[in-house]
């Protein structure tokens, strides 16, 4: 019973995605059944659109910058939180979680207000700032549980064996938390790539992919929106899968290296 329910649940989650994916390959502009054959025409149409190519590029730039900045800030924070105790840790944990506990709307208008007051021109830079703010809490949450299990005495053992703080980080800390950080970095990229609600307030003249899809949606229902949506979907889901595979592959590499060592 429960099993059937869960599969229905999954079907509910994936059905709309499956439907627009299907119709993005539809040979006719109709968005209803019967299905009249496959074609890539909507994809060639969307790639011929310079605005689409521009916004895709912008989204990639913002996503990558966001991932890098969030990873640096977030990893430092997670490592720091593991060293803090009691009230300081709780307080900062709450603060770091704050940005996602509020609706995106609130963050968007607050940032617009700040940028206007300090006369910071809205651009991809302001978009990146907003995205770091939005992804940082997710990053910290994703990494934190892993780091909380990370035994600080491992670092102390490395120090005791003669490693400098930097060597300790490179030889002990990073290999242990590395895959988690990599996964969380990809998560940040994907979240940034899809972010719309805050972006709509803080963007300047350069549009991102969600902004472009938004303006297309406001104009008309046209099948090339399907194609754009599917491309955006493929991008984020593909990235998440790659991230998952990376973590899995690294684990396998480590295991097979160990097997080789024991054979030798």
């Amino acid at each position, binding site marked *: 019973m429960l099993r059937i329910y869960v599969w229905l649940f999954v079907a509910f989650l994936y059905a709309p*995605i499956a439907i627009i994916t299907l119709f993005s390959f539809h040979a006719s502009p109709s968005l209803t059944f019967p299905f009249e054959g496959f074609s890539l025409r909507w994809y060639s149409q969307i790639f011929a659109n310079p605005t689409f190519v521009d916004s895709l590029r912008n989204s990639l730039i913002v996503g990558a910058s966001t991932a890098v900045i969030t990873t640096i*800030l977030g990893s430092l924070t997670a*490592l720091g939180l593991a060293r*803090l105790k009691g009230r300081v840790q709780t307080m900062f944990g709450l603060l770091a979680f704050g940005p996602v506990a509020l609706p995106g709307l609130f963050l968007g208008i607050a940032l617009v207000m700040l940028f206007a007051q300090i006369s910071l021109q809205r651009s991809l830079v302001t978009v990146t700032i907003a995205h770091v703010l939005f992804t940082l809490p997710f990053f910290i949450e994703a990494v934190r549980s892993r780091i909380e299990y990370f035994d600080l005495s491992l670092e102390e053992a490395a120090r005791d064996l003669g490693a400098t703080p930097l060597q300790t980080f490179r030889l002990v800390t990073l290999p242990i938390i590395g895959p988690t950080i990599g996964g969380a970095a990809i998560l940040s990229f994907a979240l940034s790539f899809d972010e719309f609600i805050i972006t709509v*307030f803080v963007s300047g003249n350069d549009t991102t992919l969600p902004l472009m899809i938004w303006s297309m949606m406001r104009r008309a229902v046209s099948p090339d929106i399907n194609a754009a949506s599917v491309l955006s979907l493929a991008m984020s889901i593909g990235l998440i899968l790659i991230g998952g595979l990376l973590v899995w592959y690294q684990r396998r590499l480590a295991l097979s290296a160990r097997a080789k060592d024991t054979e030798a």
Partner: protein
Amino acid sequence: MMNGNRREATGLALVAPSFLFLLVFFIIPAVLLFVCSFWLAQAFRLIPTFTFDNYSRALSAGGFYLLTLNALKNGLWTAVISVLLSFPAAYFIVYRTRGNLLFYLILVSWFASYLVRIYAWRTILGSNGLINTTLMQLGLIDQPLEVLLFSPFATILTLVHIMVPFALLLLVSALRDVRKEYIEAARDLGAGGFEVLTRVILPMSYKGVVGAFMFTFVISAGDFVTPQLLGGRDGMTTGILIANQFRTAGNWPFGAAMAFILLATFLMTYFMFVRLLDVLRLAPGRRFHD
């Protein structure tokens, strides 16, 4: 003790960059927004002053109540439905499966972008959409059902679709804390399935359930894109109104004031929800004996 202090000092140094970032781009803007809600706007220019005009203007307009009610309705329905739908799935994932495949399958769908989902539901629910054309082809209806799209129904359905993976994520991590042996202990002491749920699982996963509910509630009640694209004329919400003040050249202080009123209603909802769970005896940390 030396060691402990040094460890804490390193910790503080490590969190400092994030703290600075959050200070500049989160705390200061939030405070600024709050201060601004007491300012006035004239001819698109902000005039720093201290007045409750924006608040009284919002609270004295009948329309504002209606829009806020719409926002809260969207939030409440979405939160209730999302938590109810995800709970059994989370239960299944935590207690009935070994691997994580199903969990990841659901989580991956979370990364189907927000706008794309709205768009997907619009194509499905539209008057030329999948449901209407199918129903008409089957001869069940003559005219497309207009209520499907541009209605609170469409908004809530889409918001549920957007929020459910997130609610599930929170519930799964909460249920993982309720180790199997607690359930076995309850069974051993004579509890049936329903009693295990109400007396052990729910009180022990309380934080996660409240978290999942509030998260979905706040995000959907504050959302302005879904109601704007799918909600129709009757589906207008405070969120749309606030967004309009900031996107088209509007009245920022007025928008800020409305945003804080909306936040206040969220807080009230939180306290009411917690109180409700307490009354239903689903909250932990209360004694049942005198």
